[in-house]
């Protein structure tokens, strides 16, 4: 079955420290991969996406993610976290072969930033 796993429900990071949020997926083929962020009271904002090509993708707000086919992973990273990064982060996958297909989301990881 297709699924997305985000093993960490809640992570706390000190401001200025590095961050890595994990995402693993189970899918029949290499899917399209996304990271979304949700701040309180806001919608889901796209951070970055991977469709093909370079496996290290850059996104907004200084985030990057690396696709590792052998590990079925698409981990999100940021070298130096800011207090404004506190939010909920969702990894999602979509079909590369079916137009308009729904996204499959992970449960999300809540990021807290301590000063």
């Amino acid at each position: 079955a297709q699924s997305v796993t985000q093993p960490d429900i809640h992570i706390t990071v000190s401001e200025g420290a590095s961050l890595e949020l994990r995402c693993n997926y189970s899918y029949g083929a290499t899917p399209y991969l996304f990271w979304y962020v949700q701040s309180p009271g806001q919608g889901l904002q796209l951070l970055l996406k991977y469709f093909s090509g370079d496996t290290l993708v850059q996104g907004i707000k200084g985030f990057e993610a690396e696709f590792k086919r052998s590990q079925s992973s698409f981990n999100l990273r940021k070298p130096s976290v800011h207090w404004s990064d506190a939010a909920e982060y969702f990894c999602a996958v979509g079909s590369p072969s079916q137009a308009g297909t729904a996204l499959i989301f992970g449960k999300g990881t809540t990021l807290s930033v301590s000063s």
Partner: protein
Amino acid sequence: EPEVTQTPSHQVTQMGQEVILRCVPISNHLYFYWYRQILGQKVEFLVSFYNNEISEKSEIFDDQFSVERPDGSNFTLKIRSTKLEDSAMYFCASRLLAGGINEQFFGPGTRLTVL
């Protein structure tokens, strides 16, 4: 910057009542979606809509649910007779193209509370 909007932000209703959640997708987008997130659980796909008809729906989207694009700008989700388990955050999303590489843009969500 164009964005998806949703109204209301919070809806409280009694069990058995009908609710209509409203969304205004980005104006030139062609694909529309509803997702929901029960508190503490994953964001789950409900339905996609293209060319004035349902394109895809999940098991969750039973006969109690319906979608409509009544006037060329709004996209609505109706729940005919709400149940306690319908309490969730409902997200609307839209996408520019039917095919190709493009992402879904999400609205801020409507929190539905069924009492």
